[in-house]
């Protein structure tokens, strides 16, 4: 009868030592989580007490001020422009750098140095870059474009470099064997292989940049974020609602268009 009993199997049977190790690890993790919850003041009762206020805020957003949309036309356009130029500069920066970040193309030290550079650019949030560039070039969308360029170059550089690493070595060897120059080998042997995934990554970055560009305005780096932020500060919650809806529509249509385009490019 015991052979009929269901057995719980997720791997090799655990020894007493395994049970101890896992037990201690889980207990430690639970303690750390409880301590940080206390520290942060996470409290369900506060949330319950605050619910009416949240309801009140949402209530005050209705109906959204549709007339505010007219004033949003320019900020929306600016947001899109910031995202497009930020993506373009990021791709232009990543293009030459990615070869230095491809393991099989350059000596090890250069590969590691380039990848660390990409990591640094990627590791720092756009908003932080925006604050730095606002200090450097002043308030306005240009600072936003620069912030998106640097952060995006880190991500695209890594993507581009990985595509180069994954390119089939066969055609590259064949081109070397014809006596082609190094640049010719790259243009005819590597580019045709990596271009589709490069374009797909750039489109994805455009999508991400559009989302990022909607908040850059909060630190004065251009785009619709400024309107969102100031309407909140001025307690014009119906204007805020219009902003949020416009951002939602913009981001969703960008996601839809970009994913359709990417699917089309990668399938071709």
């Amino acid at each position, binding site marked *: 009868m015991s052979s009929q009993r269901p057995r719980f199997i997720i791997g090799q049977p655990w020894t007493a030592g395994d049970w101890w190790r896992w037990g201690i690890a889980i207990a430690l993790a639970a303690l750390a989580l409880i301590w940080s919850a206390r520290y942060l003041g996470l409290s369900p009762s506060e949330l319950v007490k605050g619910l009416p206020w949240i309801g009140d805020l949402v209530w005050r957003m209705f109906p959204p001020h549709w007339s505010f949309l007219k004033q949003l036309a320019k900020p929306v356009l600016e947001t899109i422009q910031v995202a497009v130029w930020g993506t373009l500069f990021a791709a232009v920066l990543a293009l030459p750098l990615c070869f230095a970040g491809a393991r099989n193309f350059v000596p090890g030290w250069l590969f590691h140095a380039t990848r660390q550079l990409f990591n640094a650019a990627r590791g720092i949030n756009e908003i932080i870059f925006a604050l730095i560039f606002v200090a450097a070039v002043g308030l306005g969308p240009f600072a936003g474009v620069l912030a998106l360029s640097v952060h995006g170059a880190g991500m695209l550089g890594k993507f581009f470099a990985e595509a180069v690493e994954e390119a*089939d070595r*066969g*055609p590259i*060897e*064949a*081109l*070397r*064997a*014809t*006596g*082609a*120059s190094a*640049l*010719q080998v790259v*243009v*005819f*042997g590597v580019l*045709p*292989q990596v*271009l*589709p995934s490069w374009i797909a990554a750039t489109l994805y970055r455009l999508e991400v940049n559009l989302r990022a560009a909607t908040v850059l305005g909060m630190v004065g780096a251009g785009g619709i974020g400024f309107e969102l932020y100031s309407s909140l500060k001025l307690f014009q919650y119906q204007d805020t609602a219009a902003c949020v809806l416009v951002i939602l529509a913009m981001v969703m249509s960008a996601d839809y268009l970009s994913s359709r385009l990417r699917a089309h490019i990668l399938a071709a």
Partner: protein
Amino acid sequence: MIEVRGLTMRYGEVAALTDVSLEVAAGEMLVVLGPSGAGKSTLLRCINRLIEPAAGEVHVAGEPVPRDRAGLRRVRSQVGMIFQDHNLVPRLSVLKNVLTGRLSHMPTWLSVLQFFRGEDVRIALECLRRVDLDDRAWSRANRLSGGQQQRVGIARALAQQPRAILADEPVASLDPKSARLVLNDLRRAARELSIAVLCNLHQVPYAIEFADRIVGISAGKVVFEGTPAQLDTDALARIYPGLEDEPGSPAQPAPGSRHVPVELSE
């Protein structure tokens, strides 16, 4: 045309080639026969220095293969190469793949902007006609069948207007009919254009049918050299040690016979 003397190559402790010497004359098709891992691919890649040999000399057209980049590119441009997996650039058109055989004759800046001289395009199309694929010039290379792609690979090598061609197991992944088409194209090119062809094969019947001369390699050493007629069971036993134990092996032709086994005929 190709002269190899005392070529030696090792990967770490493993000797890939030991003191290999051979010659290929213009217009001759020399088949290097041997089991997988015997060092055939290494031998080929040492000739155009895709791999740097440990010792030995290689002469192409009477000239030692230089080490400097410019000199090496000049020699490589005179030596076409054909690969087991054809190594076409998948997303480029057939014509552009063949045009890449002309790259070493073009100014780099014009070619990377995708400008090609009319003369280069004419040569590429003529090479495609030689392998009977000129009607597929604008197809994407990866839309063609395996055999067709390999023939485009031959056209690419011919577009270099080479003095020698190195073919590395060109028919290993092809069906018998495509394989014979490819080897036919190769031999015809060698004879008509007086190109020295050095072709690696591991199928004995193909070697016997298509080779002018055969060099047998086993474990990195030359163990046979002669005409297909001289390739007897004794020689085969040296190239493929242990083969004689397998009854009914297709690799045992009647000694001195140029007859092709039935299953390979079209």
